[in-house]
């Protein structure tokens, strides 16, 4: 039963979405399923939160490697949750009601001056690693790598006004900008379309296998 029930649910959900695309009468069933997806995902957020708390607390109590960071995770989680809930409830009491996300709330302050700079900094580190990797590993070793290198060279230089600024002594025509645009419009679009068609065919065959119960790896089968 532990396998059969999830398989039946998967098959029914998959069939409803596939068939309702062609039969409008099933549109309401499809909408009902969409509502359920939204509800299930909301519960998944709570599940993720509980799991994170459990894993972090285990790490702290057993003093596993990096347990100090787990304390930070739990403390941050509790603080954001408490502030969000406090602002949420006090905002509801106001007339007109104010969301906890509105400018001026404590939650907004935390979002603006703590969360945003921290996450932006993490993401910005990529620029440094990309530059370092380009210097050490991006080599024209063969034809394909050379093609990628040349395309990258022109797109990087053409997407920002770098090369066009350099050729300004000769012409005002944005030659490199136009060339970068051509690369994006034609070779890139053709490549992306090929990838998309390939992925779509793969998704269709995988979906059919899941709906028909042939593919069972998602419920722990072979």
């Amino acid at each position, binding site marked *: 039963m532990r396998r059969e029930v999830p398989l039946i649910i998967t098959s029914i959900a998959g069939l409803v979405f596939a068939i309702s695309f062609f039969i409008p009468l099933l549109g309401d069933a499809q909408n009902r399923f969409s509502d359920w997806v*939204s509800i299930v995902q909301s519960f998944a957020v709570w599940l993720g939160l509980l799991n994170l708390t459990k894993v972090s607390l285990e790490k702290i109590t057993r003093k596993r490697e990096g347990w100090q960071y787990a304390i930070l995770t739990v403390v941050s989680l509790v603080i954001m949750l408490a502030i969000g809930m406090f602002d949420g409830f006090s905002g509801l009491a106001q007339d007109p009601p104010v969301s906890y996300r509105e400018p001026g709330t404590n939650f*907004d302050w935390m979002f603006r001056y703590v969360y945003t700079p921290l996450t932006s900094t993490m993401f910005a580190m990529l620029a440094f690693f990309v*530059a370092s990797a380009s210097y050490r590993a991006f080599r024209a070793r063969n034809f394909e790598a050379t093609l990628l290198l040349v395309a990258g060279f022109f797109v990087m230089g053409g*997407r*920002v006004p770098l090369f066009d600024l350099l050729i300004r002594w000769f012409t005002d025509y944005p030659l490199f900008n136009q060339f970068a645009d051509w690369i994006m419009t034609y070779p890139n679009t053709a490549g992306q379309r090929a990838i998309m068609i390939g992925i779509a065919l793969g998704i269709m065959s995988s979906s059919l296998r899941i709906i028909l119960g042939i593919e069972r790896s998602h419920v722990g089968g072979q």
Partner: protein
Amino acid sequence: MASTIATILLILVGVSLLYIAYRTITGRPVERRIVFIYIALAVALPLFMTLPAPVQVTPDVERLYDALEELRPGSKVLVSFDYDPPSAPELQPMAVAFMKYAFKHDLRVIVMGLWPQGPQLANLAIEEAMADQEIAAKNLEYGVDYVNLGFQSGNEFVIQAMGTQFKRMFPQDDRRIPYDSIPLMANVTNFSNVDFVFNLSSGKPGTIEWVQIAVDRFGATMGAGNTAVQAPQVYPYLRAKQLHGLLGGMSGAAEFEKIVEEPGDGTTFILSQMFAHAIVILFVIIGNAAFFTERRKQE
């Protein structure tokens, strides 16, 4: 003064790259911390410079602008904020410029998000747009001129359900005001009551899901702003005219700011990106020069 110092420092950075090129070609590549310093300088110094970057507006940005110009005052625009703060440096300038354009042209803006942090970033963009004197003078009213419907979980299934009824996914707005009590939403049932959809996205769910469901299935007219990483994946939809314009990355933001005449962070940051790109390109050239020199020696 700061601009002159920054320019001189950038010239010195450029000249010092010659020494790095010499070291690398002679088989003594610099360690990665040195590369990091160069990138940090290339990003930071231009922020102090007053050199205007010659931004060229591309046809994709022009198409979005043309589509917006066709909207009459009072038209309803749905803006979906599907990104989080890490992508904000690229997408937030687009959001702010779009909001300024929309409010100045008397468009009615309906904001939502498929990413939890999206509606809050929308609030920041609205707040920045409202600081503009011309917009502030209009005394725009929440619920009448603009509304924030908030976040809804469910990814593309939210768009799917909105195709039938917006209210189904957003029974209340972000301030817990019931859908039926919001004057702006009075005659909005689904996508057929919205004149334009603008999606700002940095991943999934994002522009691709919006095109596949809102545009293909429910006939919405749509434009988008994407991070530079995601934009290449969206080009097929642009060429097939499923998308009415695309802003790609920081350059897209700068171009949009130029065409709507609202210079902002995109115009400022594009200079930093330009120098950062230049540094990366030069390091790639140096690395490859060393590679070919080494290979020739081995032969």
